[in-house]
C-alpha cells in the first residue's frame, strides 16, 4: 500500500510552512502532528504551533470553533513556526475565512468543497461563496470534494458508522499533503496500527483514506508539481519532537533523578500551564508526588511544606496564579528553602488573554512580593530548552537554597520542536545542602561560604530540630529578632545570596557580529523570532549586527556590561511594554537602549523585526 513517487522530479525547497485548519472535531491537531513526525523522521528541522479555540466544544462550522495546527519544516535551521503560510488546508468555510490572512498571495489553498454548503457559508458569515465569487483569484486554490471521496474510498469497509467515515477525511487531506511534499506514508500507517490495535476496521479505513488522498494528489492535474525539503543539517543523535510544557516537566523529572530527591508538585489548573501538571501526574512510577490543590496558594504552600521536609518542590502556574502565590514565595525566600516556581506567561493583566502569549510577568517575577525579597529569575527560550531550564531552575534552587522563578510562555509552552534527547547521565551534577552531622553551636542558618546558602536539615533528622518562620531572624541563631541592624544585615545577605548565583551560571554569548553597530537583545521565548530576523539581515550582508539573548535575568551573567559595550546601538525587543529594558536601564545607566515592543498576544513576526533592525543599521 505504501508507494514511492516516480512520476515527477519534485522541486527542492529550503523550508515550507503548512497550516491545517478545520472544525474542532476535524482532527487538525492529529493531522498536523502526523505531518510533523513524518517530516522529523525524514530529517527536517521543525517548529510547530497549535491554535485551538477557547471553547471546549464550539458549535460546528462556527468562526470561533476553528482549530488549527501550523508546522514549519526545513532543510535549514528552523527557529519559529513561521509567519506566512505556503499551504493552507481548510476543511470548511469558517476555517478558510479565519486563516486566509496568513496565506501569501500566489500560494496554495486546499479546500473540502463538500463543506461549502449554504449552511456552513452562513455560519462563516460569507455572503457569497468564496470559491465562486473570484475573491480567491490571487491564490492557487485546489478544490477537492474530500468528504465524497472519503465515503467512496470506504464503501467496502465494514463496521463503520457515518460519523467515523466523515471523521477520517482529515487523513485524505494528509495523504494529499504527503504527496505534495514527497513524504512517505509509512510513519502514519504505523501510527494507525498502534493507535487502533485490535480494531482492524479502523486501521483499514484510515489507511485507505490516507492512500486515497495520496493517489488523488498524484493523479490530479490540478497539482502541477510537487516539492521536497531535504533533511536539515542537525547534530547527530537520537531525537524526538517535544512540546515546551512536556519538556519542562521532563526537565524536572531529570533533576529529581539526578539530585536523588523525590519530586513534589503542588499545582492548580491554569491555562497555559496545566499541561505540566498533566504530564507530571502520569509519572507515579518515578515516585512523583503531584498534588492538585484547592487553589494557587495551596499549590505553592504545599510545595513549601514539601521543601521543608526535603523534597525537590515545584509549583506551576501562569500570571494570575503567580500573583496569588506572591506572599508564599516571599515566605520561601525568607525561610530560605529551595522552591521552583514555573510561570508559563500569558497575555495579561488580570484574566487578560489566557490562550495568547506575552512576556509581561517579568517585573512581577522580579518584584511581585512584599518587602525586599529577591529571588532567582531565569527564562527558557525554545520549546526544547524548556527541558534545560526546568532542570537549571531545580539545580539553582537546591544549590542556593532560595526560590527560583522560571519564566516560559504560551508560545514556547505549546509549540514543539525536535529535541536531541538528553540522558540524565549527561546532565550536570546537582548538589544540595542537606545535613545530618551535628557540629558544635550548630544553627539552621549556618551558611556556605561561597554561596551564602544556609544548610537544609529536614524533619526526621535527630538532633537538628529547629523552627523557621516568616519573622525576621537572627543572623547567627535563626531565632526571631527585631534588632534593627540585624534586619538590615539579613536583607543584604538575602540579596547577596542571589547576586552570588552569577558565579554558578554561564556567561552571556553573542551570535553573529561579536561587536559592531547594533546589538539586538531579547530574553525568554522570543529567541526563535529574533534569531531568524537577525540571521536574515546578516545573510543579506549587514555584518555589523549582533544578537544576545538572556536566559538568566536575576542575576544577569557577569559579562553583560562587557557585551553591551561592544556595540554602538542596542535595541531590546520584548512582548511587553518594556520590562526587561527597564531593568537594564537601572542596572547599566551608562548605555542607551532603544526598544521594540509588541503587546498583541502574538509573537514577533519576522518582517516587523527585520524592518525595525534595518532602520538602525
Amino acid at each position, binding site marked *: 500500500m505504501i508507494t514511492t513517487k516516480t512520476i515527477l522530479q519534485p522541486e527542492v525547497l529550503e523550508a515550507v510552512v503548512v497550516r491545517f485548519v478545520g472544525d474542532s472535531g476535524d482532527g487538525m491537531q492529529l493531522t498536523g502532528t502526523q505531518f510533523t*513526525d513524518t517530516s*522529523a*523522521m525524514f*530529517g527536517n528541522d521543525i517548529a510547530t504551533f497549535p491554535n485551538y479555540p477557547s471553547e471546549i466544544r464550539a458549535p460546528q462550522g462556527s468562526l470561533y470553533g476553528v482549530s488549527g495546527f501550523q508546522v514549519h519544516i526545513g532543510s535549514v535551521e528552523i527557529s519559529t513556526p513561521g509567519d506566512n503560510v505556503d499551504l493552507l488546508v481548510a476543511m470548511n468555510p469558517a476555517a478558510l475565512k479565519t486563516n486566509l490572512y496568513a496565506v501569501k498571495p500566489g500560494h496554495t489553498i486546499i479546500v473540502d468543497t463538500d463543506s461549502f454548503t449554504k449552511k456552513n457559508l452562513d455560519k462563516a458569515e460569507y455572503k457569497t461563496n468564496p470559491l465562486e465569487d473570484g475573491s480567491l483569484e490571487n491564490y492557487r486554490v485546489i478544490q477537492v470534494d474530500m468528504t465524497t471521496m472519503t465515503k467512496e474510498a470506504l464503501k467496502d469497509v465494514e463496521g463503520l458508522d457515518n460519523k467515523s467515515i466523515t471523521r477520517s477525511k482529515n487523513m485524505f487531506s494528509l495523504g494529499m499533503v504527503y504527496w505534495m511534499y514527497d513524504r512517505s506514508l509509512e510513519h502514519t500507517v504505523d501510527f494507525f496500527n498502534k493507535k487502533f490495535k485490535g480494531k482492524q476496521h479502523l486501521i483499514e479505513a484510515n489507511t485507505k483514506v490516507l492512500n486515497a488522498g495520496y493517489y488523488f494528489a498524484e493523479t490530479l492535474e490540478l497539482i502541477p508539481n510537487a516539492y521536497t525539503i531535504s*533533511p536539515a543539517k542537525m547534530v*547527530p*543523535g*537520537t*531525537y*524526538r519532537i517535544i512540546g515546551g510544557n512536556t519538556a519542562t516537566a*521532563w526537565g524536572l523529572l*531529570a533533576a529529581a*533523578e539526578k539530585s536523588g530527591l523525590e519530586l*513534589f508538585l*503542588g499545582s492548580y489548573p491554569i491555562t497555559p500551564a496545566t499541561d505540566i501538571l498533566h504530564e507530571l501526574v502520569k*509519572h*507515579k*512510577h*518515578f*515516585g512523583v*508526588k503531584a*498534588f492538585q*490543590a*484547592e487553589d494557587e*496558594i*495551596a499549590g*505553592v*504552600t*504545599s*510545595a*513549601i*511544606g*514539601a521543601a*521543608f*521536609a*526535603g*523534597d525537590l*518542590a515545584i509549583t506551576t502556574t501562569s500570571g494570575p496564579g503567580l500573583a496569588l502565590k506572591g*506572599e*508564599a514565595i516571599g*515566605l520561601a525566600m525568607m525561610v530560605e528553602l529551595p522552591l521552583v516556581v514555573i510561570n508559563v506567561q500569558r497575555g495579561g493583566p488580570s484574566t487578560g488573554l489566557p490562550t495568547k502569549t506575552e512576556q509581561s510577568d517579568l517585573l512581577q517575577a522580579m518584584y511581585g512580593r512584599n518587602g525586599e525579597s529577591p529571588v532567582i529569575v531565569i527564562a527558557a527560550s525554545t520549546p526544547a530548552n524548556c527541558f534545560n531550564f526546568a532542570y537549571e531552575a531545580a539545580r539553582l534552587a537546591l544549590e542556593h537554597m532560595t526560590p527560583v522563578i522560571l519564566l516560559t510562555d504560551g508560545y514556547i509552552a505549546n509549540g514543539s520542536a525536535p529535541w536531541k*534527547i*538528553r*540522558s*540524565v547521565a549527561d546532565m550536570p551534577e546537582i548538589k544540595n545542602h542537606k545535613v545530618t552531622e551535628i557540629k558544635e553551636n550548630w544553627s539552621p542558618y549556618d551558611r556556605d561560604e561561597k554561596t551564602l546558602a544556609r544548610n537544609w536539615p*529536614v*524533619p*526526621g*533528622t*535527630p538532633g*537538628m*530540630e*529547629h*523552627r*523557621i*518562620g*516568616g*519573622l525576621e531572624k537572627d543572623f547567627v541563631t535563626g*531565632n*526571631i529578632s527585631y534588632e534593627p541592624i540585624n534586619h538590615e544585615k539579613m536583607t543584604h545577605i538575602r540579596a547577596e545570596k542571589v547576586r552570588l548565583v552569577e558565579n554558578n551560571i554561564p556567561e552571556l554569548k553573542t551570535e553573529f557580529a561579536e561587536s559592531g553597530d547594533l546589538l539586538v537583545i531579547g530574553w525568554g521565548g522570543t529567541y526563535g523570532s529574533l534569531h531568524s530576523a537577525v540571521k536574515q539581515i546578516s545573510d543579506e550582508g549587514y555584518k555589523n549586527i549582533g544578537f544576545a539573548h538572556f536566559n538568566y535575568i536575576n542575576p544577569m551573567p557577569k559579562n553583560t556590561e562587557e557585551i553591551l559595550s561592544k556595540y554602538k546601538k542596542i535595541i531590546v525587543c520584548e512582548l511587553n511594554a518594556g520590562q526587561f529594558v527597564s531593568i537594564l536601564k537601572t542596572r547599566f545607566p551608562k548605555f542607551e537602549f532603544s526598544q521594540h515592543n509588541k503587546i498583541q498576544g502574538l509573537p514577533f513576526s519576522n518582517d516587523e523585526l527585520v524592518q525595525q533592525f534595518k532602520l538602525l543599521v
Partner: protein
Amino acid sequence: METTTAVKKYTFKDFTSDQEVRWCPGCDDYVVLRSMQKALPEMGVNKEDVVFISGIGCSSRFPYYMSTYGMHTIHGRAPGIASGVKLANPNLSVWVMTGDGDSMAIGGNHFIHLLRRNIDLNMVMFNNEIYGLTKGQFSPTSLVGQKTKSSPYGNTQPPFSPGELALGANARFFARIGGNNPKDMTQIFIDAHKFKGTSLIEVLQNCVIFNDGCFDDVTDKEVKEDRQIFLEHGKPMIFGKNKDKGLVLNKLKLEVVTIGENGVTQEDILVHNAKEEDKTLHQMLVRLEYPLATGIIRSFADVTLEEREDALTAQVKANSKFKKTDDLFFSGETYEVK
C-alpha cells in the same frame, strides 16, 4: 514508609524550647502548650519526627515554644504547608496550630479542603471568638452583637460553628475541649495522634485581654459539669454534677432527660458511638447548646489520602516499563539523525 527506629523515652521537658513564651499571663494558650508537651511523650513518637506548622495569630506562635521541628508560616496557609510536609514524609507526626481567624476566615478554603482530603495530620484550633494579635476585632466565630474594636456598635455578621463547618466538610475526627481542662485535652491530643486521618480539635480558649470570660458559661469550674457533656466512645451520654442527666433522641432532636424522673432509666440514654460513619447524630451533638458537647464527638476511621496515593503508586510502579527517566525519554516516537 514506616520507620523501625526504636522510640525514645521523653518527659515534657524534652519538648520545651529555649524561647521565652510571650503569651499574655493567664492565657489558655499556656494550657494547650503544656498539655501538648505532656501528651507527646505518651504518643510513642520520636522527637525528630514531630513537626508543628502554624499560620499567623497568637496561637501560631506555638511552634517557637516547642523543641521539635516547626514552621511559623503565613496567615491562613498552615494547612497547605502541613499537607506538603506530610505528603513529602508520611512518617512524620504533623500538627497544625491555628486560631479561629487563621483557619476559618483567611484560611477557610484550606481548612475545608484539608478536612475533605483526610490526610493523616492533626489540627488544633484555638477558638477565642476574637482576633487577639491584631488587638481585638471580631472573628468568624464572634457572636452577633459582640462589641469589638471593629464592631463598636455590635457585630452584625453571624458566626460559623466550627464543628458544623468541619462536619460539613466531612471531618472524620472532631473533638472539642475547654481551654481550662488540661487533663482531657492531653488525652485528646494523644487520641488525635493515634487516629489515622485528619483530626480537628477545637479548644475553647479564653482570651484574657480582648474577650475575657467568653466561655465562662460552659467552662467555669462551678458550672461545667452541668453545662457540658463530656463524650466518650461506647459510654452513655450522661452529665451533670450528680450524673443524673442524660441525652435521648426525641423525634429529630436531642433532649435532656433526668434519670429517675418520668420513668427514665439509664437504659434509655443514648450511647456515644464516635466511630459511626453516619454523622447525623454527631452533627446534632455538635449543634447542641445545652449541654455543650465536649470530648471526641466524631472519630470515624476512613481511608486516608496517603493510603489512596500509596496504593495507586504501587500499582503504577508495578505495571510501568519506566524505571528511570531515560526509559521515558527514549520511548515512543524517537528518530536518529546521522
